[in-house]
């Protein structure tokens, strides 16, 4: 058997993201197994709960390594990944993380690979679109004051400098915040041309509803977490008009993705978010790349990954053509979408950068 370790946040504040990621991984490997496994061997998935606690995540990665895993998937929360990737690195185990914090691929760790862009890849695309297509000058930014939010915030601020946005309101918010009236009010009264929202899904939904209540009257721009299917489900018609940049999305209108989403829904009975897709694609990537190198050699695997472009044609499970550079950062096409009538509508396809 090929042992794969899944270490994600199954409890604690990160449980929603972690569970999605884990279920994506599980679905991926089930299909892999159904398709004959990796190099003819069945995949055995060892699951660990990091409890959204970096210290525990470190222990769990250690444990997975002690148990002889071939590749590790997870963790999603950057604060955990920064710690446990050191352990995996020491042991020379390739690791697919769901984290988006820029710093992760900037540490020169040759074993870490992303399953979605780091925010430093996504932000330039959004900022460029905002400046060039929408002609925005003044921006109010509302962001989650967590390691997740801060990563995006930092990346956006860098772009804001480049494109000369004036930040007229800078509003950090708390994790699991429920009352967004003050935040909406601040953004509304700031005289901004647009509000950039970088919150997790639920908070985004609450923000959108409050914005609707106070009739904010400004375009709201964000990332997947502002306009994902989950947000639309939660915010209802308050989500209409929100727009933003999405990487791999269930609503991208790509058949492979829609089919995967349908299978996922059938199996787990809920709509997967981008974390689930991250997990799913990482499972297939592991299969395809291992079969390319022809053995379960960790070093060879990591070497092969660097600079690799995996097309959907040769490995359908990655859903879209994807490339990794030599830091483990990935890139692929992405989309600028607007929510209209409770549906994501793709406004533009943004090329990989």
């Amino acid at each position, binding site marked *: 058997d090929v042992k794969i370790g899944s270490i994600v946040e199954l409890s604690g504040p990160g449980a*929603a993201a*972690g569970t999605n990621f884990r279920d994506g991984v599980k679905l991926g490997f089930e299909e892999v197994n159904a398709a004959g496994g990796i190099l003819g061997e069945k995949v055995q998935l060892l699951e660990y709960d990091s409890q959204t606690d970096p210290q525990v995540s470190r222990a769990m990665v250690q444990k997975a390594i002690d148990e002889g895993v071939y590749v590790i998937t997870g963790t999603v929360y950057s604060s955990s990944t920064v710690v446990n990737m050191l352990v995996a690195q020491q042991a020379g185990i390739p690791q697919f993380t769901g984290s988006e914090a820029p710093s992760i691929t900037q540490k020169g760790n040759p074993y870490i690979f992303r399953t979605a862009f780091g925010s430093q890849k996504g932000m330039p695309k959004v900022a460029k679109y905002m400046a060039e297509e929408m002609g925005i000058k003044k921006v109010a930014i509302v962001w989650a004051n967590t390691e997740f939010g801060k990563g995006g915030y930092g990346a956006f601020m860098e772009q804001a400098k480049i494109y000369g946005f004036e930040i007229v309101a800078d509003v950090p918010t708390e994790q699991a915040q429920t009352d967004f*009236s003050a935040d909406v009010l601040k953004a509304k009264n700031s005289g901004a041309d647009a509000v950039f929202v970088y919150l997790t899904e639920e908070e985004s939904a609450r923000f959108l509803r409050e914005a609707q209540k106070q009739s904010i009257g400004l375009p709201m721009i964000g990332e997947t977490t502002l306009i994902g299917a989950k947000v639309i489900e939660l915010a209802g018609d308050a989500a209409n008009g929100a727009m933003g940049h999405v990487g791999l999305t269930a609503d991208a209108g790509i058949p492979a993705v829609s089919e995967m989403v349908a299978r996922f829904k059938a199996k787990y009975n809920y709509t997967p978010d981008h974390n689930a897709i991250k997990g799913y694609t990482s499972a297939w990537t592991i299969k395809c790349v291992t079969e390319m190198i022809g053995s379960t050699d960790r070093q060879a695997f990591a070497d092969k990954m660097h600079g690799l472009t995996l097309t959907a044609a040769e490995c359908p499970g990655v859903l879209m053509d994807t490339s990794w550079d030599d830091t483990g950062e990935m890139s692929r096409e992405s989309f600028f979408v607007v929510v209209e009538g409770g549906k994501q509508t793709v406004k533009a396809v943004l090329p990989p950068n």
Partner: protein
Amino acid sequence: MVEFLQLILSGLAAGSIYALAAVGFTLLWQASQTINFAQGEFVMLPAFFVLVGMTVLGMPMWPSVLFALVLSLLILGVMFKKLIVEPMLPHGTLPLVIATIALGLLMKESVKEFYGATAQPFPPVFPQTVYNIAGASISVQDLGNLAVSMLAIAGLQLFLNRTRTGRCMQATAQNPAVAEILGVNVKRMVMYTFLVNAALATVASVLISPIYLAKFSNGETLGLVAFIAAIVGGFNQIRGALAGGLLIGVIDNLSAVYISAAYRNAVPLILLIVIILVRPQGLLGTSEGRTV
């Protein structure tokens, strides 16, 4: 000025929700001297009962609410009392506090395992109409929440202080040994307390969830805010929960705008510490009397 008005209105709206959650604390304290660290989860859970009624059993909204109420009375009321509180009352507070912490964990994890980790939309109880008062918006929902929490709290206050049953409940809490000797049915009084608490939690849950969205982890933040509200208002007066809740709601909003968004959570905490130090019985609470 409009901004200020908006903040006050929104603060009151949020505060009425905190008050609803906080009143459960004061009730349990007054009627059983128990501190329920799972109170936030108590408010989180009934929403999922409603959702189960609607999505799994396919019932319409109001029957589902009724279904949730019955389930809550059974689980949060009867079972909590019989299985946890009753056997533990003689042991003093600390083990009970730990047990309620564990219970909170149990409820949270169960919802996550059996219903899902992501937030769920929840049907609104009140129409979504928004009124504009001098440039500030307030929704029917906000007004409804405020009205319900005021009614609930006033009713409870009257019940505890003006009825014999209410006083028996207090006696049971303050000195169960004496209550028993006088022939008060101690177990039944404790049961009443928990049933009322369960009913309140259900009401709170149904009112809160359209705004908060139903999520397994909602109890964490809500529980904390409710604690603070209960203490600031005064633990031994039911109406203290209302005062505390509204105050925290307004202060939270004001400090987010006028002080610092990054430290907005600190303001209620500092208020809490100050209140405890200068007026430990809370704003509306009364002192507990002689100690020597």
